[in-house]
């Protein structure tokens, strides 16, 4: 279960960012912002050894004390960043991959919506509900 989910456009501004409301949201915004550097490093040609050049899933970007940050980049250079709780050891790589797959599918649906202008913030309710299902259920 994710603690924070962000969709970042290819010009590196956020199209959608949502975190669990109980904690300090600014902290998550900063985390996502710093993770962008790591994403750029991974997709540049220099880091050939780091990640398989042909894959969209980038894997663990960096771990902090309480959280782990995962990244995924699409062919249109839109980045998805997900922050999960570090104490949640039961979450395996495959589950994170499938969560990113779902994100990508919903993003594609938003893109094909004729009322959506590429570059605007994502306001689709279907996208919102899909992200809610992925985030931690906090009472």
């Amino acid at each position, binding site marked *: 279960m994710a603690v924070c989910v962000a969709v970042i456009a*290819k010009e590196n501004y956020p199209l959608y960012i949502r975190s669990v409301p109980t904690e300090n949201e600014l902290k998550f915004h900063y985390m996502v912002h710093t993770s962008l550097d790591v994403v750029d490093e991974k*997709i540049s040609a220099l880091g050939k050894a780091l990640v398989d*050049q*042909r*894959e*969209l899933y980038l894997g663990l970007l960096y771990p902090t004390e309480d959280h782990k940050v995962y990244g995924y*980049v*699409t*062919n*249109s*250079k839109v980045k998805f960043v997900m922050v999960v709780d570090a104490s949640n050891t039961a979450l395996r790589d495959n589950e994170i991959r499938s969560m990113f797959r779902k994100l*990508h*599918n919903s*993003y*594609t649906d938003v*893109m*094909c919506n*004729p009322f959506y202008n*590429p570059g605007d913030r994502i306001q689709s309710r279907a996208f919102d509900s899909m992200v809610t299902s992925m985030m931690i259920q906090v009472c």
Partner: protein
Amino acid sequence: MADEALFLLLHNEMVSGVYKSAEQGEVENGRCITKLENMGFRVGQGLIERFTKDTARFKDELDIMKFICKDFWTTVFKKQIDNLRTNHQGIYVLQDNKFRLLTQMSAGKQYLEHASKYLAFTCGLIRGGLSNLGIKSIVTAEVSSMLCVKFQVMIQKL
């Protein structure tokens, strides 16, 4: 993809619809062509997002052009581009010897000057797809004979 005839008929109606709804002065200005091209642009962006969902990341520009010629064209027009030429300096020419959207019109010289209206949407399609993949370009089309269409893509280096 649904039956080809559906898109063909819709496209033809779209072109005549845009021209009918234009005001008197606009028909000469070429604004209708721009409108059609912009429609194609937006559709191209959405289509590319869907088609590249599962493919691996592209290595370079040539890779992207090859993808457009093969997979993209096959999915939209059910055939591949017949010829791709480049001068390796940002100009690509895609040649289609039997362009699907024009096959229903007479093969002679009769409608040659009107053909450009029917190509505007496809030019926009290519431009939209490329822009979503991070390439700014200008796409033009020329018809030498009714079936053979050449799309010229000029990549704009930043």
